[in-house]
């Protein structure tokens, strides 16, 4: 070692930056599936979800200094993904998208029972009502009923008090119920 002094230090130091990026990219890539699924459920659009995950990965890389505990990487990155989804939903409100037509089940189809048709109609109405919710309401509903997080975990994940999470859940479910009631009345 004494015969090979500081000459080795330069390439080692230079490579350490590249290695750090590679390690970080590997870590983000390991969360890609979970992030993509979460973003798609929140946004309801797979292509947008891909964009959001890629954007969130870049944002995470740039904000890597804010990661205090490396064993909480998943929660930290998930929070960034949720924030990116919120931004996307807000910008989407500024750029209205074309509305998809409602699902129509042929009433004459002999192979489908009335319960099935009602179930599909009901889920479609619920999905449409979900699309009308505020971004924050969508996020808490997804984290609670799809991700199965507790109230406290949701609060920690998106950085708001548990009481606010409860309040948002209450309002969101209330709005969904109202939308469903109105939808059933129209049919």
């Amino acid at each position, binding site marked *: 070692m004494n015969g090979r002094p500081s000459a080795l230090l330069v390439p080692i130091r230079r490579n350490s*930056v*590249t290695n750090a*990026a*590679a390690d*970080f*990219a*590997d870590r*983000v*890539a390991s969360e*890609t*599936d979970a*992030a*993509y*699924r979460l973003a*798609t*459920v929140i946004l*309801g659009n*797979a292509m947008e*979800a*891909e964009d959001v*995950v*890629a954007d969130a*990965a*870049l944002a995470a*890389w*740039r904000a890597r200094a804010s990661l205090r505990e490396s064993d909480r990487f998943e929660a930290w990155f998930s929070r960034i993904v949720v924030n990116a989804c919120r931004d996307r939903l807000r910008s989407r409100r500024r750029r209205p998208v074309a509305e998809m037509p409602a699902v129509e089940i042929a009433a004459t189809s002999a192979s489908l029972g009335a319960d099935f048709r009602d179930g599909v109609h*009901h*889920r479609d109405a*619920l*999905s449409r009502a*979900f699309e009308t919710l505020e971004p924050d309401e969508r996020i808490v*509903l*997804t984290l609670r*009923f*799809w991700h199965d997080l507790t109230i406290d975990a949701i609060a920690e994940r998106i950085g708001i008090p548990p009481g606010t999470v409860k309040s948002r859940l209450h309002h969101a*479910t209330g709005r*969904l*119920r109202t939308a*469903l*009631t109105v939808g059933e009345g129209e049919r």
Partner: protein
Amino acid sequence: MTDDATFERDLRAMLTARDPGPAPAGLAFVVRERIRSDQQPRRIARWGAWIGAAGAVAATAAVFIVALWVANPVGPGPGPGASLTPDATPPYVMQAGDGVVTGEHVPLFQGLAALIAFAALLLVAIRTKGKRQGIAAALGSLVIAFVVVTIGTSDALVFRDGVYGVTPYRTVSDGEPGLYVAVTGDQPFHLVLTVTNGSRLPLDLLGLIEPESLRAGPDGVSPVLPRFVGIARLPDWDVVLTSAQSFERVTIPAGAQVTVAVLGMAGVCALPAAGPDGQGGIDLEHVGLVYEQLTIVHTQDFTLPEPVKITTSMNGCP
């Protein structure tokens, strides 16, 4: 109306139906590429942001200083009464108006330029995405705000030691401290004074503030009151008026001194001594001086170490 359990079940089913399953195979690759490609531009962008912020601050400061230099209402020369030659032909006799700096000294343009610089730096502080650049710009704007607030108001000139006297003088005092002038009517007298730059920066002494009597012209203000009307340079610590030279702009380093002779007019009511019916008096406690520091022109009522006392009659002026 759906009951709670059914509603929650339907909600979960709806959300599960939105779940697309595993991410497309290429997404992980895209994520890696996005991070990898960000490294080099990020470093360049960081340096670029620093250089940009520093450049903006430097450019703003340069514009500020150039604007002050261009708009300086006094300019680099002496006042209109001062000679441009280093030494006047001896014997030099000081006249009213010598070394007087004319014009208004309210630093409106300087204040405006400083406000523009302040606004520009504040804009940089608000708009920049870099925290450190923002802090640097905010500090710069605070410094300029301080300059704006204190512009033209500092009192850098003080009397610490040196010479201080008046001629012609009266030896008999009236019991109050001061320099008693012994002239009759609106006659000239001279004040000799050593001025020290008490600030931490060098300054240029430009001359005497233009007195009201000179500004009003010969048909203007009646010379009833005593006033200072001219200034000349003296060799350091010299009190001999025949050594006086015409006043020119003089640079005084921090802590350094210059000795000046100030020409005063005693006013038409002045008496050389108290009359039998008692006396009144007028005290001159300040000399108005003009100096320039950091391209900003300041006017200062220089406080004399002791008042110059002009004795006047109690029964009105002659």
